[in-house]
C-alpha cells in the first residue's frame, strides 16, 4: 500500500456546503498557510465540523476526523502494536497517519478526551512539529501539509472538561455561534429545502429555546436541529409535529421544560 493511497480515502470528493457568516474562511486559510493549529469554539450543532470539511475540500487536503471520548487513550490517536501471525507489528493511529502523509487531523470535541491524552499533541503544535512514538521508539516529523484542528464546546464549562492552559495557548481560535436570525433562516431554508418563511418560524422557535440555555436546558436548539425539523416539514409534517420530533423530545426529559418549549412552538407557529 503506498503512502498516498492510505490518505486518499480521506479526501472529500464533493463540496460540503458552507454558508459564510463572516470572514472565517479567509482566517482559516491564513492560519493554514503558515500551518498554525486552529481551535474551533462554539456550541453543538452550529457548524464546526461542516466548516472543517468545507475547508479541507477547499484546500484539497485529506481530512482525518477523530471523535474524542473519555475512554480514548493516547494509543487510540498515535497507534499501537498489534499481534499478528508473524509476531507484533505497529499500526499507525489516525493522528500519526495525518502527520506522516500530510492531512488535516480534526479532533472533534477534544475536551471529552482525558487530559493525559491531549498532551501528546503538544510537540506537534509548536514549532517542533514532531510526534514522538514512544512505544515504537520513532520520531515522526510532520509532513509540510499537516495541520491540526480541534473543536471545543465552551458550553460544558465543567472544571473536569476544560483544556489545559498549555494546550489552549498553542492554538489560533475561531469563535462560532448560531448565525444571526436572517442568515440562519437562509441556511435552514437552503439545507432543508423549505420556504424562507417556514425557516424563519423555525429560527424564531430556536431563539426561544436558546433563552432557556442554562435554565433547564444545557443548550438551545442548534442549527442542525432546525435543519432536521425543516427536512421533516419538507416531508409534510406540521411545524409543531416536526419540532416535537426533532427538537423538544431529544433536548429534554423535564416535563416543565417540555411544556415551556411546546408553548414556545405554539406561540411562534
Amino acid at each position, binding site marked *: 500500500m503506498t503512502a498516498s493511497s492510505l490518505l486518499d480515502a480521506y479526501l472529500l470528493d464533493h463540496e460540503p456546503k458552507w454558508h459564510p457568516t463572516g470572514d472565517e474562511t479567509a482566517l482559516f486559510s491564513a492560519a493554514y498557510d503558515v500551518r498554525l493549529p486552529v481551535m474551533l469554539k462554539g456550541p453543538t450543532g452550529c457548524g464546526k465540523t461542516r466548516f472543517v470539511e468545507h475547508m479541507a475540500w477547499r484546500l484539497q487536503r485529506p481530512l482525518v476526523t477523530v471523535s474524542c471520548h473519555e475512554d480514548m487513550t493516547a494509543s487510540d490517536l498515535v497507534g499501537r502494536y498489534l*499481534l499478528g501471525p508473524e509476531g507484533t507489528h505497529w499500526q499507525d493511529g489516525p493522528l500519526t497517519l495525518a502527520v506522516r502523509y500530510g492531512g488535516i487531523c480534526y479532533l472533534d470535541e477534544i475536551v471529552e478526551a482525558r487530559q493525559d491524552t491531549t498532551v501528546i499533541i503538544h510537540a506537534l503544535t509548536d514549532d517542533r512539529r514532531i510526534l514522538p512514538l514512544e512505544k515504537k521508539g520513532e520520531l515522526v516529523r510532520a509532513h509540510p501539509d499537516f495541520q491540526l484542528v480541534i473543536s471545543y464546546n465552551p458550553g460544558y464549562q465543567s472544571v473536569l472538561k476544560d483544556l489545559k492552559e498549555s494546550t489552549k495557548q498553542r492554538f489560533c481560535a475561531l469563535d462560532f455561534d448560531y448565525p444571526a436570525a436572517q442568515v440562519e433562516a437562509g441556511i435552514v431554508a437552503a439545507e432543508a429545502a423549505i420556504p424562507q418563511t417556514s425557516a424563519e418560524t423555525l429560527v*424564531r422557535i430556536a431563539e*426561544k429555546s436558546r*433563552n432557556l440555555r*442554562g*435554565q433547564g436546558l444545557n443548550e438551545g436548539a442548534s442549527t442542525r436541529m432546525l435543519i432536521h425539523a425543516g427536512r421533516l416539514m419538507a416531508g409534510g409534517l406540521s411545524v409543531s409535529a416536526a419540532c416535537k420530533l426533532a427538537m423538544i423530545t431529544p433536548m429534554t426529559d423535564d416535563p416543565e421544560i417540555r411544556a*415551556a418549549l411546546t*408553548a414556545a412552538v405554539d406561540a*411562534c*407557529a
Partner: protein
Amino acid sequence: MPAPETGAMAARATGPAGADARIAKAHARLAGAGYGVSVPRAYGQAAPIVADALGTEQALALADAASRIAIRTRPRIAAQFLDLSVPMARRLAGPEPFGRWIALLVGVSKPAPDAVEPLLERMEMLHERLGLVALDAWVQSGLRLAAGDATRRRAYFTLDLAEAVRLLERHAGEDTFQSLEGELRATYRALWGHVPPIREALAQAKGHAALRASFGAGVIQLPSSYSGFRGRERLVYQAALAHIGAHMAYGGKRFEPGQLKPLQIAVVSLIEDARVETLALREMPGLKRLWLPFHDVSPDGMATTPSLFGRLARALIDPDFPLRHGWVRKGVEMFRAGQGQIDTPALSRHIGNILGNDLGQTRVQFNARDYVVQPVYRDDNLGLWELPPDPHQGQQHHHIDIATHDLRRSEETDRPQERKTERSERDTDIPPETVAPMPVASGVGRIVGQVPEYDHLAGIERPDWVTIKEYDPGPGDPLFWRKLEDRHGALLARIRALVRAAALGRHRRLKRQAEGERLDLDAAIEASIALRAQRTPDHRVYEGVSIPDRSIAVHLLLDISQSTGDPVGGGPNGAGDVTVLNMLRDATALLAHAMDRLGDPLAITAFASDGREDLRVVPVKRFEDALTPLTGMALSGLRAGYSTRIGAAIRHAGAALGQVACHRRLVLVVTDGAPSDIDVSDPAYLVMDARRAVQLLNAQGIDVFCIALGQTAGQRQGEIFSKRGFVQIDRLDALPEKLPALYLKMTR
C-alpha cells in the same frame, strides 16, 4: 331446570311487594325511634326513589345510616342526609358507589359528628369536583389535619381553612399556580428571554383570592387559581403570562393618570392591552390561538359597559368579529388608522381618551370599584399606571416580602447556576425592596419546602403534608476542629491512613484486556507461542489502567431530637456530661474529615420535628460548601430538642441528593430511637411513612442506610430500612471510631 326457574319467578313476583314491606318496616322503625317527625318523613320520601333507582338494599341501608347519624349528631342532620340521598342517588348512579358514599358519612359521624353537617351542606359541590375516591381522601385528610381539634375540624369542612381549599384543589387534580409554577417560569423565559420574579398573589384583605394577574415593580403576581376554568387552568395561566410578557416587552413608561376619569383609565388600558398584543402577535402569531378562545363575548346584546369593553377587546384581536355597535366600530377604526404609531404607547392614550370620553357622554354606568378586566387572562392593569399609593391596594406591592419568605422552591432550586454567576444582574433588574428575603433571626425557621406523607391506614400519600423549616445552627465553637484533634488525635491519624489506602488502590493495572494502551507482554508471548503451535491464541493481549472510579455522594442526616441530649450510658461508667449528641458530633466530624479527603461530596443536615407544621432542619454543610471551620461551628452549635419525624427528613434529604450527579447516592441516617412526633399517636404511622420514603428513594436509585444508636434502638429500624439497611451500635463511645470505618467499608 324447573326448580330454579320457579324460584326466580317467585322472587320476581313477590320481590316488589316484599321490598315494599321491608322498607315500610324500616320506616316504622325510624318513626318509633323517637327522632321526631322529620326523619321518618324524609325517609318516606327518599326511600322509594332510592329503591327505584338503586335497589331495595340501598334504601334499607339508608335507614340504618340515618338512624346512626341521628344518634351521633342530631335528627335534623339525619333528615338532611336523607333529603340529600335523592340527588346523590342520581349522581352516583349505582348501588356500589352509593353504598360507599353512605359508609363514608357514617364513618365520619363517629369520630367527628360535628363535621357531618358542613359536609352534607357542600356535598354536591364536593362530589362534583372530587368524585367519590378523592372525596374520601379529602375527608380523611381533614380528620387527620384537625387531629381532634373540633374548631379546626369545623373550619376545614366549612372550607374556611385555607388548607382545606388547597387540599381540595390538590385532590381535585386541578392545576393551580403551585402545580404549574415551574413550567410557567420556564415558558416565560423561553418566550421573552428573561424572567421577572413570579409570585402567587396573596389573598386580599377580605380573604377573597385575587381574580386577575398583576404586574408592577418588576414582579408578576398570578392568582393562586382561576376558578371556573376547570381543565383549562394551564391555558389561562399561559395566556396571562404571555399577555404580561407582551406588556413588559412592548410597553413604555407608566402612564400618568393626570385628570383622567376611571372610565377613561379603563379604556386606555384596554387599548394598550390590544396594542401590546398586536405587537406580540407580529413576532409570535401562534399566541392568537392561546388568547382568542378566552374572548367569548357576543357581538349583540345589552350595551352595558362590561359588554362593550369585552366586544372592543375582542374586535381588536379578532378581525372577523362583527362590529354592530357604533362605539366598538369607532374604536376599531381608530386603532387601524393608528397602525403607523403602534410602537408608541401614546397611541393607546390618544385613542383611549377619545373613546372613554365618548362612552362617558352616553351615560352608561361604569362602576370602577367592581370593575374586573375581561377576558380572564388579562391583568388588572395596575402596572400600567403611575397610581398614587392607595391603602386598599396594599396587597399589590407591600406584602411581597412575605410571599418570597415562604415561596420555597422558587428560591431554592430556582437556577442555582444563575445565582452564582449572575448575582449582580439579578440584583439590578429587581428592585431590592420588593424581593429582599425577610431577615431571619436565629431560632425562627425559613420555610424551604413541603413534602408529602404516607398514611398507611388510608393507603394514600398526602401531598405537601409536612412543612420543612430551615434553622440556623446555634452559636458554635470556632475551635471545634482543634479540640477534635486533641480528643481523637490517634483516631484521626488512623483514618488518614485508611483513606490513603482506599485512595491508593484505585489505579489498577488491568492485564489481558481485549483493548488497551500497550501489549501485555506475558499474554503476547503466550499468544505468539499459540500461533506458532497452530493453536487459536487468546485475543486478550493488551494491558490497560483502570479508571479511578469513585463516585458517591452522601447526605448525612443527624437526629437531634430531645433524647440525644441524654448522657451516654446512663451514668454508671462515669461518662457524666458526655451526651449522645456530643458523640454524634465527633463521629460526624471524623466522617466529614474522611470524606473530604476522599473527595466524596457530603451534605450534613440535622433534623428534629415539632409537629407536621415544623420539621426543623439545620443545614450544617451543604453539598456545595467546603469543609471549613464554619462546619465545625455549625456542628458544635447543634442543640438537642423536639421529636423525630424521620420520613419527612428522609424525603427532604433525598430531594437534595437527587440534584447531585454521582454514580451512587446515599442517605445515611443516624438516629437513636423510633420515629415519634407530638401530633401522632399511632406508633406505626410514622414508621410506615418512613418505610415508604425509603422505598421511594430506592426507586430513584438513592440508597438509604441507618445507623441506630443504643440498645433500645433497632427494633423499628428493621421495619423501616429493611434488615440489611441498618446497623446497630450499642456502645456509643465507639461511635466516633465506627462511623468513618463503616463508611469506608460500605463504599469500598
